[in-house]
């Protein structure tokens, strides 16, 4: 038997909820951003940035809420500012995106706690932490239709997009004698949340095309398509956060 001092288990699944070994996923911070105008690269999407103070190697989990479809596109760490930055893409312009950053909670030094769990003298769980409570999730392989669901009413939710399908396509077509057209497309699966209604749809973040003649252009390249299809979105109860 391990040397744990405290454990709490989920009565339905038997999963360990809290122990003295691994920290719970807890709220680190929240905020709201507004994405910019529609990007000319697609004519469809807008872009915004979420910045979260943190440590290198400790990338936080980001959950979002937006009435339009959104997806997280990239993340990076700036050692100068000590911040993680996450690029958000949204369908449409000027979308309000509320974000929640989760990770290992910092120990709360002030008194007022009810129960605390320590690991080797360091507090890793405190009743005052705000845990990422999972109320549902959708996962699978993207097909012809996009998944959606409804959550119980009366709560505030945020979406944790664990895996986002993404595809990139280069399509090359002959357009005549010694001429061809190249089309580049980049698509992501985005999620929206309207009250308790969750939906997903495609967000095109790039559409570029060009017509070429041979010569002077080099011979046409080949067409290709790369795609990740697995999606996984968790629904978090962030009521009162």
């Amino acid at each position: 038997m391990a040397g744990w001092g405290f454990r709490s288990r989920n009565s339905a699944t038997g999963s360990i909820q809290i122990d003295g070994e691994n920290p719970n996923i807890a709220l680190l911070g929240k905020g709201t951003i507004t994405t910019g105008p529609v990007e000319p690269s697609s004519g469809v999407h807008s872009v915004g940035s979420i910045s979260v103070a943190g440590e290198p190697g400790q990338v936080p989990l980001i959950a979002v809420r937006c009435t339009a479809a959104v997806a997280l596109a990239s993340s990076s760490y700036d050692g100068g500012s000590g911040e993680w930055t996450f690029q958000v893409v949204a369908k449409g312009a000027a979308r309000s995106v509320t974000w929640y950053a989760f990770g290992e909670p910092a120990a709360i030094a002030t008194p007022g706690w009810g129960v605390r769990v320590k690991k080797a003298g360091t507090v890793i769980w405190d009743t005052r932490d705000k845990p990422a409570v999972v109320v549902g999730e959708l996962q699978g392989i993207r097909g012809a239709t996009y998944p959606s669901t409804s959550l119980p009413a009366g709560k505030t939710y945020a979406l944790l997009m664990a895996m986002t399908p993404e595809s990139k396509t280069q399509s090359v077509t002959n357009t005549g004698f010694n001429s061809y057209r190249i089309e580049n497309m980049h698509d992501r699966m985005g999620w929206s949340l309207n009250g308790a209604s969750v939906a997903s749809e495609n967000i095109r973040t790039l559409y570029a095309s060009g017509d070429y003649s041979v010569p002077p252009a080099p011979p046409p390249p080949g067409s290709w398509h790369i795609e990740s299809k697995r999606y996984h979105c968790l629904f978090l109860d962030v009521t009162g956060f």
Partner: protein
Amino acid sequence: MAVVSGWGLRIRRPGLSEFNSATIVGRILGRITVSDDGSLSNSAFASGEPRAMVSGGVSQFNATPPPEVTFSGNTMSWTYPTPAPGTERPTVTIIYWVQ
């Protein structure tokens, strides 16, 4: 509010949803930064349902999508889509937990 009997731990705080024995929460097991296909094993995956989030990727067109993550027993595996000509695999961080 759900009525819970036989509870072990309940936390009720004004304005927040109650934490009780039916609440599903995650415990972070680790992070790994990757740029190629791979896998790892962790016995703690057996203490609940393992989950992972892929953080990173790049917006550039000449990069493949980030890897897909799957679990089998105590093993987590990640696999990138097959690159197309001229595309590279982005370095990403996988955050994994059990809930």
